């Protein structure tokens, strides 16, 4: 009986905790924390953030886009190239390097 109650409590808490993508609906601080967690997960978080791009709330869409841009290194990219941010990160691999020089930052709007 005690085990069953424990399992029920676990199930209830799992249902009640919001999905990470839902935290993008929260206040600025909550959303920023959620974005930081997505970014820490790296490319694995891309599919979840991509879901946010289809949200009806423009604020959620914008926040999802911010998270995606920080992971991919490119504003507006959801399934494209994942860019490194400096030549020192890119040299020494077994492939040629494509280096883009630009004004502003490629992972921000209006770069």
């Amino acid at each position, binding site marked *: 009986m005690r085990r069953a109650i424990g399992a029920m409590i676990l199930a209830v808490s799992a249902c009640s905790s919001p999905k990470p993508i839902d935290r993008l609906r929260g206040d600025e601080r909550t959303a920023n924390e959620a974005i930081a967690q997505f970014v820490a997960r790296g490319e694995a978080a891309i599919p979840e953030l991509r879901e946010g791009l289809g949200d009806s709330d423009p604020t959620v869409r914008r926040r999802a886009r911010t998270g995606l841009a920080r992971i991919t290194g490119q504003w507006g*990219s959801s399934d494209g190239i994942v860019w490194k941010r400096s*030549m020192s990160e890119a*040299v020494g691999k077994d492939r*040629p390097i494509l280096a883009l*020089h*630009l004004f502003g930052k490629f992972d921000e709007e209006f770069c």
Partner: protein
Amino acid sequence: MTFSDARVVDLVKRNFVPVWESVAPVSVAVFDLGGGRSVRGTMGGEIALYFCRPDGKVFDVLPALHSPHATYWAIQEALAFYRKTGATDEAIAKHHRLRFAQMQAEEAGLPTPSVEKWKRWRKLKTRSTDPGTRALGELSYSKSGFVMDSESIVVIEPGGMQLFKRQVHQALGSAPPKTPEEWKRHVFLDILDQELKGGEFRYDVDTLAPISVIEED
């Protein structure tokens, strides 16, 4: 759009280590209209794509933003050169000297009359001693930012491939391989005619000087 184009994305992902570096902040001109009102304009600068060996030395450059189609074929061409030669120091120098000689013989990559006219027009627009008026002139010919339905897009006018490539072949054929950082000033200042500066600039509209609106042929 170029780096969201499926063909370009696939080609880059399969064959390159992609990296971007900022050369300067974007320029933002703010015109103070008084009464707490202002107009902001974003002046996106030029870009340059460097094709580098894994050690970071450049073997080819594509200055300026071009259409996805033109960019795709420029990347393909650079990749073919790398695969064929390994982009050794000798191969880089030989390739670019040969291309430059070909372009010289064919008189290719020289400024056309329309390019010369555009350069004169640009000089006219930026000749004003008033910085606000110069910024307005720059806004009128730079990449332009628009906002549509809460989404921002940047509109640019691609072009100048041959003109720029001629200068790239001349430079890379006559210098030892360098890193993008070492080529940066030559590419932006000499080839693209683009100063490496940016940031936010505020102007009082009352200080704007009259500019010539009638073009001379």
